[in-house]
């Protein structure tokens, strides 16, 4: 029963969602199922929050290794929660929008949370540099082609690329580096991406059918036999 009910729900919901694409009368049902998911997700949020507090609370209580990080996590969680729930410093009072300008919640978001997120995102620039360094080492034929393509694209997007090949006559304009960069992006690169997309679409169809038909049950933690 524990396994048959989820399989039945998957079958019904999956079939209705497919039908809702092709049959307009079933569209509303498809939308309703999506709303059901959102409702379940809201309840699950309490589970997530509870889990966070329990794990870090335990670590703090037992003074486990790196307990200081847990303290920071819990402080951040509760300060944001209290500032949002009680709308502290909110000029419009308890009935106003939680993210009203001037509220403590909004200030914490703008002045602490956002800069921290931006800092993490900024790390990407350094990681791109280190990853590119490894990827573009011409160890073999494929890596050499990648290196050349990357060099052309990088150069084609800078004024130097325009300047370096502007002397090439208009009749051979494809050989100008900026045009070559555009060609690489719109022809071989796009073709490769589309091939991947077609494969993904087919993979999604196949996987969805396996789930709907109950052939794939690993997500329920059971073997398929």
């Amino acid at each position: 029963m524990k396994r048959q009910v989820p399989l039945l729900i998957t079958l019904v919901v999956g079939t209705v969602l497919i039908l809702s694409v092709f049959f307009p009368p079933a569209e509303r049902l498809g939308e309703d199922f999506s709303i059901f998911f959102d409702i379940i997700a809201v309840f699950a949020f309490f589970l997530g929050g509870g889990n966070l507090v329990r794990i870090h609370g335990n670590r703090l209580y037992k003074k486990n290794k790196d307990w200081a990080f847990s303290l920071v996590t819990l402080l951040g969680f509760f300060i944001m929660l209290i500032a949002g729930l009680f709308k502290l410093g909110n000029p419009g009072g308890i009935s106003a929008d939680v993210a009203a300008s001037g509220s403590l919640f909004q200030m914490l978001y703008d002045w602490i949370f956002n800069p921290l997120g931006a800092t993490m995102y900024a790390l990407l620039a350094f990681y791109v540099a280190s990853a590119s360094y490894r990827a573009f080492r011409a160890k073999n034929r494929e890596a050499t082609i990648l290196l050349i393509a990357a060099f052309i694209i990088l150069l084609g997007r800078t004024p130097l690329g325009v300047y370096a090949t502007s002397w090439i006559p208009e009749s051979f304009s494809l050989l100008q580096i900026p045009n070559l960069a555009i060609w690489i992006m719109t022809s071989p690169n796009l073709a490769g991406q589309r091939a991947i997309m077609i494969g993904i679409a087919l993979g999604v169809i196949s996987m969805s059918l396996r789930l709907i038909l109950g052939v794939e049950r690993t997500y329920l933690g059971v073997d398929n036999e």
Partner: protein
Amino acid sequence: MTDKPTISPCLKVISASFIFLFFNIFNQTLFSQNPLQSNQSAPIYIPAPPTNVRAQDFKYDRGEAVEVRWELSADDTGSNFITGYEIYRAGEKSDSFILVGFVAPKNKLLIDKNVERGKYYRFKVAASYDGRLSYSEISNAVTPEMDIINWNLLNLFLVGLIVAGAVIYFIAHAKRGKKLFIRKIAGLEAIDEAIGRATEMGRPILFIPGISDMDDVQTIAGITLLGRVAKVVADYDIKINMPVSRSLVMTTARETIKEAYLGAGRPDAYNDDMVRYVTDEQFGYVAAVDGIMVREKPATCFYLGAFFAESLILAETGNSIGAIQIAGTAQPAQLPFFVVACDYTLIGEELFAASAYLSNEPKQLGSLKGQDVGKFLAMIVIIIGVVSATVSHAWGGEFFIKLSEYMQRIFTIQN
């Protein structure tokens, strides 16, 4: 007695000329730009209104939209005199029209989605100019109706039917015990080796199922793979660490791992804290996972699911701690990052095929074979499309032009 200052006649003439010139320029610059403003008594030019306004039921929907079309005003010539079109709606017998939309000049279509099925509606369109409106005639009455089938998606339905039919056929085919050849996928072959390495090193395994929720098929694919990985982990008695960014993923992953431990006959070794919720916020999650990687130094990292800008940050951190990394996603933009930073990458469809491949079950492998039929069809269609488009563009020829147009038409999804 002082002498009165005298002004020479010549200076008077010059001064008068300057004053005249100044007023002339002032008048021209301020009032001559717009004749409608410069002379309030002059007749105001009223532009031609839009014509031939017709309303019709939006096809193949639930009867919740009406399509309004019209011919452009004759003065909509691109000179910015007409600033756009306002579309008004009224009930069948009511003359009180309410504004339902505004479109830019040169547009002659509006789909009104705020209508109710079974009611009558009429429309009129006004060309907006200089803060005023020039109204069209009132359109015909229209009643939105619900259609049973969306015929616009017939092409998609047929393609889906062929692929789904092939998948079901090959599943049934495999059930009968026919042998199927499936190519080797290096990333999946390496899973056991990666888990073995963690066992030898006595370090944990980190499993990241992406940052999407359970309504994303990539996350489901990641969780199905987690089931396989967890089984080996349970057998080898290694620690698995799974920080997640969605509460629903947390509950699903817990169930999956718990069942795997149960299946391995070691339910006592299972612990709820193997899967823990961190945050829904993308970069908050990345910061937490990077911290876990640096502190706990897992021997193996799995990144299987939907990833976005965080993909490279995670994979490069994993690389820096020397972990063996297996990644898989169906986000084409993130694939290059994983390919560069990870040891093995499941590219797009391989992620969805992974669970079936690892199960080695005929039914599941049959579904992969059915997928190949779809690929074969795609190849044929691409070849026909490329040949017809190239030939028709280079040499013309009615047959190839028509074939090319036909291919474009049947593979364009209209909604």
